[in-house]
């Protein structure tokens, strides 16, 4: 039996959704694999929805909004682009489905384009095959989801444009490079920490085992352990003495 | 001669005394006493009969003495102050004299804590020195402690025990002096292994002239095994066993250790005889009476002198 991908698409009410309707009115044909969620603006799409969708069994996710400049809410689509770019970077760094995520623009008048995008993406996913569900990948997705849902990231993602383009709390403009750096670093840290918490759910582990699982060097791994210890989220398993202490969830 | 004591007589002749001991049985079987008596007959001059030694209940010393006496042996009645008050002690002395027992050895007695009735109450109405005094007074003055006159004095030759190695160091010789002063006529010592220390003690004793009034019989105990030697060193208070002696015991195979023990004992007796002031030997072969004869003979102390 041939593989039928399950695709989730978020369509902005004013452009993409209208475009989809137009495709219908125009009887443009496209594959039936897509499930549509209507949102008022592509800016509403929380990046955390994406790993959530993958975890729920979707093989691909599309987000379609208005063309730049056309946003009904002025810049919702631009914000969506930033957020999704960040998400895509994380997904690609982790090697989990960045190629299964599509953000694009469809205006209310582009019924044809809508159908083509759907067709193209469906084919792309079909050729990629089903979303590989290994324990490791699911762990990564869960960690990505948890990280993105955390207050720090949400706040930063939301505030970033203001900081870079308008002014920060000190009435200055923050260097965009710096904002990006902080955002990426923080996300990366959160992600690693959440993954470690995930590993330790099942068993106690040494720093070496954790670093192997994270596919990071020990030197890169240790700071995450230090900060988790500092936050009191993990501790040391003192039940046995060894040269390599085992970490345990508190 | 104050008494009919065989020991007194031998000493009076200037002879060298050999005594040994017989522990009464933990039962009423007189045969046990008789058997032990048989082993010692003719081998030693007198036989000590212990008085509930180590505070373990045994046949009374007086009864066992009477049995030995009946066999023609010369018993020495050991009396401890632990179990009887002055009334009982004096009464037993009269009884012993009546049975023809000529010797008494006055002792404090081991504390009941070590025995089979640690729950018991001890008496210690009088102490061993006072007991010596009491017996002498009964014999010489013919009076009880309370002052009343005795009809028929008990003629006892009075002795005591002495541990030359016991503490306090300061009174090692004085302790003997005090016993002598109380009227003690002979001393049997704790078993001696450290010859050097014993001869030093003897020197102190002789220096003060104690040996003239009070005959010192040096105590010896043959080792049965190396383990016994070790036990004595470690667990018996006041016992001084030199290491080389233990080494010597350990140095021979187990089955030969008894033999070695006897050999050591004999050597010791020979050395002790050379020490000035030593007037006799007291062989305490603990539950090993069968070997006394062998020891006495090997030590050249056989036959025992005759007395008229």
């Amino acid at each position, binding site marked *: 039996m041939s593989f039928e991908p399950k695709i989730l698409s978020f369509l902005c009410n004013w452009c993409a959704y209208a475009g989809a309707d137009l495709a219908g009115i125009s009887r443009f044909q496209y594959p039936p694999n897509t499930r549509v969620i209507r949102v008022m603006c592509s800016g509403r799409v929380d990046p955390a929805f994406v790993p959530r969708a993958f975890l729920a069994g979707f093989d691909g996710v599309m987000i379609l909004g208005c063309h730049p400049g056309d946003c009904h809410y002025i810049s919702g689509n631009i914000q969506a682009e930033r957020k999704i770019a960040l998400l895509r970077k994380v997904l690609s760094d982790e090697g989990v489905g960045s190629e299964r995520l599509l953000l694009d623009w469809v205006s209310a008048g582009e019924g044809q384009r809508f159908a083509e995008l759907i067709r193209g993406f469906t084919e792309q996913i079909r050729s990629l095959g089903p979303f590989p569900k290994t324990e490791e990948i699911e762990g990564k997705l869960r960690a990505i989801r948890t990280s993105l849902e955390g207050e720090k990231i949400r706040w930063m993602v939301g505030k970033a444009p203001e900081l870079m383009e308008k002014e920060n709390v000190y009435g200055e403009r923050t260097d965009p490079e710096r904002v990006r750096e902080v955002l990426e670093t923080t996300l990366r840290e959160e992600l690693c920490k959440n993954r470690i918490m995930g590993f330790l759910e099942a068993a106690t582990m040494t720093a070496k085992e954790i670093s192997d699982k994270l596919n990071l060097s020990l030197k890169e791994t240790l700071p995450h352990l230090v900060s988790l210890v500092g936050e009191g989220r993990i501790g040391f398993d003192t039940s046995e003495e060894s040269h390599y202490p085992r970490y345990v969830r508190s | 001669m104050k008494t009919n004591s065989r020991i007194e007589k031998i000493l009076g002749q200037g002879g060298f005394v050999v005594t040994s001991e017989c522990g009464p049985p933990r039962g009423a079987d007189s045969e046990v006493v008789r058997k032990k008596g048989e082993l010692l007959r003719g081998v030693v001059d007198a036989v000590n009969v212990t008085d509930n030694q180590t505070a373990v209940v045994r046949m009374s010393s007086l009864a066992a003495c009477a049995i030995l006496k009946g066999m023609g042996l010369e018993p020495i009645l050991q009396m401890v102050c632990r179990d009887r008050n002055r009334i009982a002690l004096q009464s037993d002395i009269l009884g012993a004299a009546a049975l023809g027992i000529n010797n008494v050895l006055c002792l*404090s007695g081991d504390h009941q804590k070590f025995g089979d009735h640690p729950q018991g109450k001890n008496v210690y109405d009088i102490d*061993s020195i006072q007991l010596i005094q009491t017996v002498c007074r009964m014999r010489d003055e013919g009076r009880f402690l309370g002052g009343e006159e005795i009809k028929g004095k008990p003629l006892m030759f009075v002795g005591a025990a002495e541990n030359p190695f016991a503490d306090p160091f300061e009174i090692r010789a004085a302790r003997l002096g*005090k016993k002598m002063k*109380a009227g003690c006529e002979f001393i049997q010592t*704790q078993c001696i292994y450290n010859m050097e220390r014993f001869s030093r003690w003897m020197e102190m004793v002789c220096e003060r002239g104690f040996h003239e009034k009070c005959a010192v019989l040096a105590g010896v105990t043959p080792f049965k095994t190396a383990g016994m030697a070790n036990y004595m060193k470690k667990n018996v208070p006041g016992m001084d066993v030199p290491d080389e002696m233990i080494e010597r015991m350990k140095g021979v195979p187990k089955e030969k250790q008894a033999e070695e023990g006897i050999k050591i004992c004999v050597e010791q007796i020979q050395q002790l005889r050379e020490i000035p002031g030593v007037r006799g030997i007291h062989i305490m072969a603990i539950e090993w009476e069968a070997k006394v004869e062998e020891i006495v003979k090997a030590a050249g102390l056989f036959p025992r002198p005759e007395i008229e």
Partner: protein
Amino acid sequence: MIVGNRKDFKEILEKLGPRRRVLVLGCNECVTVCGVGGEREVGVLASELRLFWKKEGETFEVREHTLERQCDCEYIDQIRGFADEYDVILSMACGAGVQYVSEAYKTKLVLPAVNTTFLGVTIEQGVWSERCQGCGACILDMTAGVCPIARCAKSLLNGPCGGSSGGKCEIDNETDCAWQLIVDRLKESGQMERYEEILPVKDWRSGREGGPRKRVREDLKL
């Protein structure tokens, strides 16, 4: 002071039998000082009883009270007001106190909670040691101030037995040999010659052997 030991809790419980209304009575004299029957120990014993009976689900009443002395009837009278409310008085005084309380409350059951052990001194906080047996005829002048009657396991008056070793008594090596102490003190004070004297047999009539004792001082009597 009089030194005692608390009885085992189990023994106390057995002695109490089915009685559940208990007056725990302390004494603020010797037994307080030697930590066996003062207010604190009364509290401890009362607490133990309450804990035990609560555990067993029983109903009970335990009262704590400490008298200035249990060897004077005026003090003992102080509990007259409420002693009747209890089945039993559990006295934490020495044997004298227990008896005297018992004499004062003839119809009341008075039980000892303490074993009276000896007349002694405080060696250090929490450690007491026997010094006197109340023989009634003190000979401490003869024995350099160390009593061989109380402190020698065999009460020997004329020197140590052969078991004295390294300054310790043959009964255990925690106990000092009284005669070692005497000899040491004689030596220190240059009186070694006193050791040579033979102490005569003791007249025990002044002691317990002469029967229960009583002392009267006429001039103090009312």
